[in-house]
């Protein structure tokens, strides 16, 4: 018993202590477990939230991704908010082109007072962000969701605004409000910031792309030579490039309206009617030639529509393009004139021959009369000039078709020039004009060229020089080798002539044979020189006498021949002093 007593008396405090310790331990374990469980739950909640956040961001990213419409983006965001934030009402305010728009969604019924305070705070926030005041009368307002019950006395307890910034400019505000106070914590706001931030970034990026593309398009329209006018479906001018303002003679910095065009076009083109037709019937139209002063245009009117992703088309307006066709008309006129001239030049000699034969046939002139020989000579001259022209036309068509063949061979330019001089000597003597050659000693004996073709050029140059040089004048044919890297030959015999090309006039890069035919004739007006070597555009020269009418085809053919040789051709001339026609052939 003692032992028992002892033992009970001795052991009982220990036992009590042990039980106590055990209890403490149990409690400790229990609480710590509970705490752990709480932590785990909290962690799990956090993870879920993060995942959720990511999912929402991803979804929003996808939905917002290709939209440029700020309102649409705000709608998407507000529509998704319910999934992770508790609110009584959510809304956004956005600046559109004309006014501001407020869209509020009520989750749980609130009073009118709640709404109006929320609205005021949204606008105040937008004002602060944009540094602008907004006309409260001119607001587009939409309220959706639960009904408004004025009996509900609870007012805004918690509210926060998130700005939507695009391209560094606040364009709207997203607002979340709740009747309970102190509800929104930083993390709630952080996720909203993230969402709007992502949306802003996406839109800014897209807008950047659009701006760049638009810039390209604008630059293109601005720099276009054609006048471009675009109107919207209400016929208001959306685009008018500088060219079109120039056409209707409006200052480039000024805005234009369709009426400016109606005034200028008058009865020539019913621009309003054609625009209406184009927009309503979606048809294109291209006008006949229309002149505005001295300039001719072809005016095209084209409908502009935008195909919607949902299908169908949205009419955006119409584009008017003024295409300047003056050059085409001028070319047409020159070509007609050219054809007319060729026909005339062919008909005249042929008709002359016909009429001479008619005289012979009718017996007006008999073979034994004095006139017979004279008329026979006339017929001979006519047929010769016609043959020359026919040959020129054939050469020209060969050149134009790229079928003109140059047969280069080793030939002596001195011999070719001497040959031509002796050929024209009789004619020059008959006119009292001196015709000489000046062959430089630096000329090699043989060079590579087509002697027949070069003869043809010399024929043209010399016969032209003869035509335009009066009695007592002189013609000089010079030939020399010139290396553009070295000084121009100074031992040329050119005392008798007054106009001679300089090294730079010859326009050569390699050492070349240069042949110059100089005269002391009437010279060529500067304006006419540039057209001399172009088909259809020969200068109308005034020959010194009646026999010298010319189609000018010879020079065009000469140019073709020289270019086939890889050389240059040109002329230097001073009115009243003379001209020097030259060609070069690279060695």
């Amino acid at each position, binding site marked *: 018993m003692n032992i028992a007593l002892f033992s009970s008396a001795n052991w009982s405090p220990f036992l009590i202590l042990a039980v106590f310790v055990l209890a403490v331990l149990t409690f400790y374990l229990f609480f710590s477990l509970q705490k752990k469980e709480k932590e785990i739950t909290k962690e799990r909640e956090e993870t879920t939230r993060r995942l959720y956040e990511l999912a929402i961001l991803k979804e929003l990213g996808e939905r917002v991704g290709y939209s440029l419409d700020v309102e649409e983006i705000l709608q998407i965001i507000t529509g998704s908010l319910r999934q992770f934030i508790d609110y009584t009402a959510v809304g956004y305010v956005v600046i559109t082109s004309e006014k501001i728009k407020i869209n509020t969604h009520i989750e749980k019924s609130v009073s009118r007072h709640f709404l109006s305070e929320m609205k005021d705070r949204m606008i105040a926030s937008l004002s602060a962000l944009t540094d602008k005041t907004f006309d409260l009368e001119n607001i587009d307002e939409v309220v959706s969701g639960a009904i408004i019950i004025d009996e509900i006395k609870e007012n805004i307890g918690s509210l926060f605004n998130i700005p939507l910034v695009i391209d560094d400019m606040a364009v709207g505000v997203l607002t979340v409000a709740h009747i309970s106070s102190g509800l929104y914590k930083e993390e709630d706001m952080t996720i909203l910031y993230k969402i709007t931030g992502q949306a802003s970034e996406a839109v800014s990026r897209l807008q950047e792309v659009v701006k760049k593309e638009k810039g390209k398009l604008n630059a293109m329209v601005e720099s276009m030579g054609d006048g471009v006018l675009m109107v919207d479906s209400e016929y208001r001018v959306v685009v008018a490039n500088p060219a079109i303002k120039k056409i209707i003679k409006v200052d480039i910095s000024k805005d234009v309206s369709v009426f400016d065009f109606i005034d200028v076009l008058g009865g020539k083109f019913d621009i309003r009617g054609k625009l209406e037709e184009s927009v309503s019937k979606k048809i294109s139209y291209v006008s006949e030639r229309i002149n505005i002063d001295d300039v001719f245009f072809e005016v095209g009117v084209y409908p502009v529509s935008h195909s919607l992703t949902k299908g169908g088309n949205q009419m955006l307006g119409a584009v008017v393009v003024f295409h300047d066709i003056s050059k085409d008309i001028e070319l047409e006129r020159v070509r007609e004139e050219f054809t*007319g*001239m060729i*026909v*005339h030049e062919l*008909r*005249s*000699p*042929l*008709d*002359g021959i*016909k*009429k*001479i034969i*008619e*005289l012979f046939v*009718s017996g*007006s*002139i008999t073979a034994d009369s004095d*006139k017979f020989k*004279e*008329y026979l000579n*006339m017929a001979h001259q*006519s047929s010769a000039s016609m043959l020359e022209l026919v040959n020129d036309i054939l050469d020209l068509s060969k050149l134009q078709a790229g079928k003109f063949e140059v047969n280069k061979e080793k030939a002596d330019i001195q011999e070719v020039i001497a040959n031509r001089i002796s050929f024209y000597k009789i004619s020059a003597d008959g006119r009292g004009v001196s015709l000489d050659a000046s062959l430089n000693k630096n000329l090699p004996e043989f060079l590579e060229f087509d002697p027949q073709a070069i003869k043809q050029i010399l024929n043209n140059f010399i016969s032209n020089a003869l035509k335009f040089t009066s009695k007592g004048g002189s013609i000089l044919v010079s030939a020399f080798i010139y290396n553009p890297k070295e000084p121009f030959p100074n031992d040329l015999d050119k005392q008798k002539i007054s106009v001679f090309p300089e090294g730079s006039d010859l326009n050569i890069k390699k050492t070349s044979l240069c042949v110059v035919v100089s005269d002391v004739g009437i010279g060529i007006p500067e304006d006419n020189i540039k057209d001399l070597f172009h088909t259809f555009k020969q200068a109308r020269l*005034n*020959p010194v006498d*009646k026999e010298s*009418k010319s189609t000018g085809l010879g020079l065009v053919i000469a140019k073709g021949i020289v270019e086939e040789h890889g050389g240059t051709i040109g002329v230097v001339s001073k009115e009243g002093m003379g001209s020097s026609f030259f060609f070069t052939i690279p060695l």
Partner: protein
Amino acid sequence: MKKILVIDDDQFFSKTLEAALPAGKYNLISAEDGEMGLEKLKSEKPDLVILDLMMPKLDGTAFLKKLQESPELPKVPILVSSNLSSVKKISDVMAMGAVGYVIKSDESLQSIVQDIERVLGEETKKQ
């Protein structure tokens, strides 16, 4: 003797026409371009002018225009003879007061002579 002024740079035309005209009835004078034609119109006072269109210096159309603009120049019937055959050219020239248009290569010398006689005949009747 009627005086006919041929203004044409094509000397063969005036020569052949001269040969084709009945001898002793007409006096043919020629000018090689429009400017010379104006001079001879004033100095020679012809009964008829035969005018070419494509000429150096002053062409046929410009010649007709000068005639229209200058009332002091003698009023003479103008017969245009040219190788230009476009309808527009013909109607333009007729509108400028020419009494007739002959496409040279389409007509024989004989028919041109007939045209000349017809025009001069009408002018005589008028007087």
